[in-house]
C-alpha cells in the first residue's frame, strides 16, 4: 500500500470491454471456483494439512521481471513463467481460463473501494442525506459494468475475507424511491429544477464536487466516480466530478478541502485500521480519518478494539464498530477486489483457498514438477525490488523476495487466516493493570533446530536484537510495530519475553509478524539506511552474502531489471 499511486493506477487502468466480457467472465469464474475441489494437489477434504508440509522441494527459484502485462501472459502461455500473480484484466482471465495447462486461482482480497463525505461541513454532516445518497448508488450494476464481475460489491467497512467481517450491518441497497422518502421525511425538498433544498432553507444546495484521480491515471476509478455523480444528480444533488492529479488530490484531502472523494485501501487481516480510519483523534492534517468522523460512541468502541485484550473481545468490538459505522454512513463502500493468480499445471502441490491465491509461501514449500524431474521455478515479478535492505524495504516487490529469506515468529494459515506457529512454536499473552497503566507481556517459546542460512543457530538473542535494533533506530517501516515495546528479556536461548506498555491483542501480531534478523550480523550494522546486505560477504560462508535469514530460500544473485535468483536452503527447519 505504500506506493499506492502506481498500484492503484495499475489496478484501475486496465478495464475495457466490460459489458462484452461480463458473461464470459461469469462462466470463467464458475469454472475456476468449481475446479478448486477437484484440483490434483488437493487432499480428500480439499485442503492440504499445512503442518505436514516439508519443503522446499524446488532447488532453484528465479523471480523474473516482466513489466508489461501482455508479455507476462505470453510468457506464462509459452512456459517461460510458471507463476503469475495479480491478474486483473478480464481479457487475460478469460484467455488463461480457457487453457488446459494453466490453473487459475481466485481469492477474496483485503481491499475496499469507497466514496467518502467531508463530515466536517454541511450538508455532509446531515445523516439523512448520507443515508439517502447511500441508497442512490447502484453499486452492483456499476461493479458489474466496470469490472466484468471480478470485483465484489460491498456495503460493509471490512471486506468479506476479513476474519472480523460483520455481515449484519445496515445495508443500503440501491433504492432511489427509498432515498427520496428518507430525504422527504428529514425535511429536504426539491426546487423546480429538481435540486435539493436543505430543511429550513429556501435556496437549493450550491454546486459540490467529487474528487477523483484523473482519467489518464485511473480510467476505471474516474468512470466509477462519474457513475456515482450521475446517481447523485438524479437524486437532486448538484454535484460535479473534479479530476485531479493524485498528489494534488491527496493534498486537498490532507487539508480537508473537499466535499466528496473516492479512495481505495489495501487492508490487512487485523481490523485495528478501523481506528485509524474513524477515530476522532486521527482527524488531523494528513491523518487517515479523512472524512472527519467524530462520534463519541464509535470512538469508545474503537478504543476498546485497539486495546482489546484477547481475540474474543477484539472480534466483538470489531463487529460492533462495523455495525455502528454502517448506521452513521461516513463512507459509501462500493467494492472489494478478487485476487487472481495463475500457475502452470505441470506443477503439483499448489496450495490455495478462497482466502489465499496460489502464489504464496506455502505453495513454494510444497510445489514440485509433476513430471518428476526437478527444474527451476520461474516466478513473475512485475517490478524490480527497489531495495534488498530489509530495514528500508517497503514495497510489495521488495518483500516478494525478502519474504522468502526472512521469517517471523508467527505465520498465517492460508485457509483460515488464523495464526500458525512458525519460528515460535507457542506463545502466551499476559496483561497487567488497567487503562494507561497497563502492560502486555508476550512470551514466545522458540522452535528448536532452526539455523540461519550461514549455519549459526537461531536463538532468543536474535529476536531480542531485532526488536531492540528496530526500536532504537526508530526505523519508519517498523516504528508502529515496536513503538510500545518497553523491554525484551531472554530467560533462555529458546524463550523471549516482550513487555509492551498498555494492553492490546494486536501487539501479538505486531511483534509476531516482525521479520527476525540475525543478531550476529545486525550488531555490525552502523547505518541501517545504507546497509546493503546482498553486497556484503558473509564471514561464515564463502558463497553467502549477509542477506541471510532462517527462511527456505538463500539469495544468490540479483541482476537489476532481469531476475533474482534464490536457491533452496537445505538446512531449512521444515525440510
Amino acid at each position, binding site marked *: *500500500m505504500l506506493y*499506492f499511486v502506481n498500484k492503484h493506477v495499475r489496478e484501475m487502468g486496465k478495464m475495457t470491454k466490460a459489458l462484452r466480457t461480463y458473461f464470459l467472465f461469469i462462466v470463467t469464474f464458475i469454472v475456476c471456483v468449481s475446479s478448486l475441489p477437484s484440483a490434483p494437489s488437493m487432499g480428500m477434504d480439499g485442503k492440504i494439512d499445512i503442518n505436514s508440509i516439508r519443503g522446499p522441494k524446488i532447488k532453484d527459484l528465479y523471480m523474473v521481471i516482466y513489466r508489461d502485462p501482455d508479455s507476462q501472459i505470453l510468457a506464462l502461455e509459452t512456459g517461460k513463467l510458471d507463476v503469475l500473480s495479480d491478474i486483473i484484466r478480464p481479457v487475460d482471465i478469460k484467455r488463461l481460463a480457457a487453457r488446459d495447462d494453466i490453473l487459475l486461482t481466485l481469492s477474496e482480497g483485503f481491499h475496499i473501494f469507497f466514496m467518502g463525505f467531508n463530515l466536517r461541513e454541511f450538508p455532509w454532516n446531515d445523516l439523512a442525506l448520507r443515508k439517502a445518497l447511500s441508497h442512490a448508488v447502484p453499486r452492483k450494476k456499476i461493479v458489474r459494468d466496470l469490472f466484468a464481475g471480478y470485483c465484489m460489491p460491498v456495503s460493509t467497512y471490512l471486506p468479506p475475507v476479513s476474519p472480523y467481517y460483520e455481515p449484519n450491518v445496515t445495508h443500503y441497497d440501491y433504492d432511489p424511491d427509498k432515498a427520496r422518502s428518507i430525504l422527504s421525511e428529514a425535511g429536504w425538498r426539491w426546487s423546480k429544477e429538481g435540486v435539493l433544498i436543505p430543511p429550513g432553507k429556501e435556496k437549493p444546495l450550491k454546486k459540490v464536487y467529487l474528487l477523483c484521480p484523473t482519467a489518464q491515471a485511473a480510467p476505471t476509478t474516474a468512470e466509477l466516480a462519474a457513475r456515482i455523480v450521475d446517481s447523485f444528480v438524479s437524486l437532486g444533488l448538484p454535484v460535479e466530478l473534479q479530476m485531479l492529479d*493524485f498528489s494534488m488530490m491527496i493534498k486537498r484531502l490532507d487539508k480537508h478541502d473537499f466535499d466528496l472523494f473516492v479512495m481505495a485501501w489495501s487492508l490487512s487481516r487485523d481490523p485495528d485500521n478501523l481506528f485509524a480510519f474513524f477515530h476522532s483523534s486521527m482527524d488531523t492534517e494528513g491523518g487517515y480519518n479523512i472524512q472527519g468522523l467524530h462520534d463519541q460512541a464509535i470512538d469508545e468502541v474503537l478504543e476498546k478494539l485497539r486495546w482489546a485484550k484477547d481475540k474474543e473481545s477484539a472480534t466483538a468490538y470489531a463487529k460492533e464498530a462495523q455495525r455502528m459505522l454502517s448506521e452513521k454512513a461516513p463512507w459509501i463502500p462500493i467494492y472489494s477486489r478478487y485476487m487472481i493468480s495463475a500457475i502452470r499445471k505441470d506443477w503439483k502441490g499448489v496450495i490455495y483457498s478462497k482466502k489465499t491465491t496460489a502464489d504464496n509461501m506455502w505453495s513454494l514449500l510444497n510445489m514440485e514438477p509433476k513430471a518428476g524431474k526437478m527444474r527451476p521455478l520461474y516466478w513473475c515479478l512485475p517490478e524490480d525490488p527497489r531495495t534488498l535492505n530489509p530495514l528500508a524495504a517497503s514495497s510489495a516487490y521488495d518483500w516478494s523476495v525478502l519474504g522468502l529469506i526472512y521469517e517471523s515468529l508467527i505465520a498465517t494459515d492460508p485457509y483460515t487466516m488464523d495464526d500458525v506457529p512458525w519460528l515460535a512454536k507457542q506463545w502466551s499473552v499476559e496483561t497487567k493493570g488497567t487503562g494507561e497503566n497497563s502492560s502486555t507481556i508476550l512470551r514466545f517459546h522458540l522452535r528448536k533446530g532452526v539455523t540461519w542460512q550461514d549455519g549459526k543457530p537461531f536463538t532468543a538473542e536474535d529476536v531480542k536484537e531485532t526488536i531492540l535494533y528496530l526500536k532504537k533506530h526508530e526505523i519508519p517501516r517498523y516504528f508502529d510495530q515496536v513503538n510500545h515495546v518497553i523491554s525484551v528479556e531472554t530467560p533462555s536461548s529458546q524463550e523471549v519475553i516482550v513487555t509492551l506498555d498498555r494492553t492490546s491483542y494486536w501487539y501479538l501480531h505486531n511483534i509476531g509478524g516482525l521479520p527476525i534478523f540475525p543478531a550476529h550480523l545486525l550488531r555490525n550494522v552502523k547505518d541501517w539506511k545504507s546497509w546493503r546486505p546482498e553486497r556484503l560477504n558473509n564471514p561464515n560462508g564463502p558463497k553467502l552474502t549477509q542477506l541471510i535469514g532462517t527462511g527456505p530460500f538463500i539469495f544468490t544473485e540479483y541482476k537489476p*531489471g532481469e531476475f533474482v535468483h534464490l536457491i533452496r536452503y537445505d538446512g531449512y527447519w521444515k525440510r
Partner: protein
Amino acid sequence: MTRIFRNYWTRRIAGSIAVLLMVLVLNFFLFRIMPGDPVSTIIDPHFSPQAKMHLRSQFGLDLPLYRQFYLYVKSLVTFNFGHSFLSQKPVWEELKTRIPNTVFLLGTAFLLSAALGTWLGVKAAHKRGGVLEKVVLVAGSISFSFPSFFVQLVLLLVFGWAIPIFPIRGSLSVPPPEGIMALWDFLWHMTLPISSLVLLGFGSWAIYVRNLMIKTLSEDYILLARAKGLPENKVLWGHAFRASLPPIVTMFLLALPGILSGAVITETVFSLHGVGKFLLDSILGHDYPAAGAAFYLLAIITIICNLAADFAYGLVDPRIRLGRKME
C-alpha cells in the same frame, strides 16, 4: 582563431553555464512546488503520522528550505547525487546500472533509423515521383504515426509468441549464459526492441531528408554540376547531400540527448532496465535526489550537444565558419 571567434565561444559557453544554473534552480523549486512530497503519497493505515514524521526527517525534508537547497547544489556540483528516496541506494549507482542498456538501445536505434531514414530520403528525392518515393512517403507516414506500444506489442506477439524466434523480455536469458555467449545473448535480446524503434523512427528522418533534398536538387548549382558531366552519385552525395547536411546534423545532435532520457514505453513493453522508467518512477514518487540528478545530467548533455551542433555547423558548411567569414 580570431578574437571575434573566441568571443563568440566565450559567450556561448557563458550562456550555457547560465542555462545550467537556471536548470539547477528550477529543478529544485519545481519539484518542491509540485503538490505532495515523497512521504505524503504513503497512505497506509499501518504507517502512522508519527512514522511519517520519522521518514520525513530521514529524507531531510524537515530541514529549512535554504539548507535543503545548499545540500542539493552541493550534491550536484560534486556529482555525488546522494541516495534515492525510493530505493535508499546511491543515485549514481541506480543510473550506472541503467545507462548502458538505455544508451545501447536508443543509441543503436537512433543511429540505424537516422542512417536508414537519411539514405531512403536521399533516394526518394532523387527518384521523385518514382515507386521508391511513394513507398518512402507511405511507409514513413505510417511508421511516424503508429503508437509505439502498438507496434511493439505486435512485434512481441509475432516474433515472441507466434513465431518464437526472439525473447519477449529483458536483455539477457534466465539463467544467463557465460563468456562470449553472453554477448550474443544480449544482442539477441536487444534485436526486437531496437528493430521496433528503427521501424518507428526512420519515417520522420526519411521525410525530413527527402524534403530538404528536393529543395537542394532544384538549385542551379546542381544543374551546373550535372551539366559539367559529374557522375550522378557525386552530384547527389557530394553536392546536394553535403549542402543539406547542416540542418540534418543539427537535428541529429539536438535529438542525441534523448538517448539518455530513455523510452518509457519500450522499456516497459520489453521489460528493459533503463533510465526512462527510472525517471518516470522518480517523478511520480517525488524522489527528489533521483529526478534532480537525472534532469541535471540531461541538461548537461543537452547543452554539450547544442554546443557541438554549433561547432559541427561550421565543419559541414564552410559558409558559416564565423571567424573565417569575419576575416
